[in-house]
């Protein structure tokens, strides 16, 4: 066990865990922040996506020992970000979610995309969102919500 000082959604959090523990499980089990989801554990489905120093990152494959001082932002904190708030509102307005389990990861990935490119093309959307699996198949509305958010971000 090792103690780590993490910055999560702007707050300092101290955790005492095995260094190999993926960030996902630190968030979910140590910090009880369950908005970030376990879907595959190998970085293949995107349900666990968080922002690490602003970059959309699969938290299920990043050991806590490699995080250092980089800021972590999760679905619970992204609403404090102006782009994050717009994207979450667009998600609600577009009625994107079905089961909703993958949507934290979808939203975190979409926010990172829109911060990078505020006017993404269909190809940009497909490339950025291409690794986020949704078994309910909400992809039509994910595209639509990203465009709605984009229109509000001018």
């Amino acid at each position, binding site marked *: 066990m090792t103690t780590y000082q993490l910055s999560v959604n702007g707050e300092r959090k101290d955790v005492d865990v095995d260094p190999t523990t993926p960030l996902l499980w630190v968030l979910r089990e140590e910090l009880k922040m369950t908005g970030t989801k376990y879907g595959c554990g190998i970085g293949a489905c995107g349900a666990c996506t968080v922002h690490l120093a602003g970059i959309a990152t699969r938290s299920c494959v990043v050991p806590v020992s490699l995080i250092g001082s980089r800021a972590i932002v999760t679905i619970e904190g992204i609403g404090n970000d102006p782009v994050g708030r717009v994207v979450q509102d667009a998600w609600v307005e577009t009625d994107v979610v079905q089961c909703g389990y993958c949507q934290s990861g979808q939203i975190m990935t979409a926010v990172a995309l829109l911060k990078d490119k505020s006017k993404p093309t*269909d190809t940009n959307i497909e490339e950025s969102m291409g690794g986020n699996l949704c078994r309910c198949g909400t992809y039509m509305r994910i595209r639509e919500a990203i465009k709605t958010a984009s229109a509000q971000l001018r």
Partner: protein
Amino acid sequence: MRALIRAATDRKLSRRTFLRVSGTAAGGLFVGLHFDLPPLLREKQGAPKVYPPEAFVHVMPDGRIAIVVNRVELGQGVATALPMILADEMDADWSQVSAELAPAADVYKDPVYGFQNTGGSATIANSFLQYRELGAKTRAMLVSAAADRWHVAPEQCRTANSVVYGPGNRSARYAELASAAARLPVPEKVRLKNPSEFRLIGKRIRRLDGRAKSVGAQKFGLDLNLPGMLIAVIARPPLFGARVKAFDDREVRTMSGVRDVFEIPLMTGSAVAIVADRFWTAKRARDRLKIEWDLAGVERPDSAELFTRYRQLARTVGTVAVNRGDEGAMDRISTSNRIVAEYQLPYLAHTPMEPLNTTIRFDGDSAEAWAPSQFPGYDQAAIAQVLGLKQQKVTYHVEFAGGGFGRRQSFDSHVQREAAEIAKRMRGTPVKVIWTREDDVQGGYYRPMFVHRVEVGIGGDGMPAAWKHVVVGQSYLAGTPFESLLIKNGVDFDAIGGTEDTPYLIPNFRVSAHHPKVSVPPSQWRSVGYSHNIFVIETLIDELATRAETDPIAYRLKLLPPNALRLRAALAILEQKSGWRKNLPPNRAVGIACTQYQGTAVACAAEVAIENKRPKIMRVSVALHCGLAVNPLSIENQFQGGLIFGMSQLLPKGVITLKDGRVEQRNFDRLAPPYIGDAPLRIDVHIVPSAEPPTGCGEPPVPVISPAVVNALARLTGKRYRSLPLLAL
């Protein structure tokens, strides 16, 4: 399940088989902030005849209204649709309405089938009237309470937005009236609204859980956190049915956080459970645990070998399920007017995004369980059996589910049984069992593989005159509580659903089935037998239309009986809305497919191109007839998503294969269901306007997409693709 439900609906089985009604429930009582099911109801057997509002509606002092949903929310929108239905008849203020999922209890059994279940696209079909009546009764009680207070007749009062209005500008909020209303008897009969009076039903209403699920606040079963809770993972055998011979846990027991390691029985074979304080600890311990498996004599199913065996079986007539007309008709049709087609369809995994999980705390003389489940009553009974308790001693909470698609509706409740075995050993401590994605992908309970062999004799008019169809594949229901009801003369009606009940007019028609036994556990996969039967039927019908040089929609309309009203209407709307299919860019083609599932008719047109030797679905138009569309927005979502779910079996990495007994896929690396890049850019959904009783929309979209795509490919390439997934074109 579909067959089960149809059997019940058709009254082929006595209703009494499913409905063990035992008297009426107690009178009405609204409760305050906390929902607590009256013990009286919990003890009763069977579904009650009268559904007391107090078990379904809670008017809180601050005006909020909680509506209890007798199904699990899997994403399909029941936790919005059922509250809409009740709130509409109740004249409740929608902005104050929230949904709660019901625990396992008799009062929450499906009012038609008599067991608590979310499946068969049955929620809206079976609970529409139930929830309307509940809403109307609640409203009537609130009105009576107001009328009593004002000494006026109830008829002098009206309601709107959670307020009762009486003569002389009097008004009272529902919240003020709730406790008085609770003391009144529940009315036996109430007037229901005319459709013109609906304020919520029929409107495009956004999901109640949309915000919570967009901000990470929605709790799913996997998110449950209880004081002192431990986590378990299970090391499963490499072959289905294998047993633990020995295991060495000395090393893992020294790991910090590991609490216990022990063998548990599975439905077949056995496994080793690892209990730890954290998931990561349990998972790492599992990786290090040394287990010797007894593999001697254990079956080693292999997809290629099974297909060979199935193809051989398909050359012989199976147990006959349907035999209409003249069996000799085929012989009178020349071989040049016959098509012989053989289809191979793979195992399919549901892989709901939320991995399987169940949490149980066993207290010796009682237990409490939490699970995202489509079959709460059966799970509750299974847990009770493992723990040696009466069913009523197990409190079973239904949690929000991150997808289901049939995977959380297992007839053997194996997920819950395994969790109960662990809880039994860990008495007094809540233990959450988590399936890793690898456990899920490799864990069986797949849509079984099937081979179909069909001989079609074409009449002089280009229409099918004789049809001989052999279906080969595992039974869904053998060995389940429903076996005696739905396997008739050895034929599993869930396996042949979509073929045996085809609405097409085929005069000489025989369907038979073989159900080989294989060690891979099968299960219902969204749309059950229709997922493969409709692929076969609809691609063959398309082939016949092409041979007859007839438009595929016109051909289908010609082949449908006049009373196939819903399908005809769906096809007609599709025709009308898919004018674009007459005006395609070069190197594009459109394929058509249709079906009617659990009363809902679907017709689909898919525009397809070929890119990099793969089909690229450019655009889809789908028309449907589901009776009254309770929430058109939700239906649109279900259809868009359901079509994409149905694409899984087209994708080369969308399916499950076995080699020498082992599942070749492990996780979402070698198994790749549709991602956003696979999805069409556009799916238009057209709903046939109707005031008929509503039917379900969860499964109906799934079966049509694969045949529609393959029919388009046939137009592009001239080839008929009869095996899925589609490999390089």
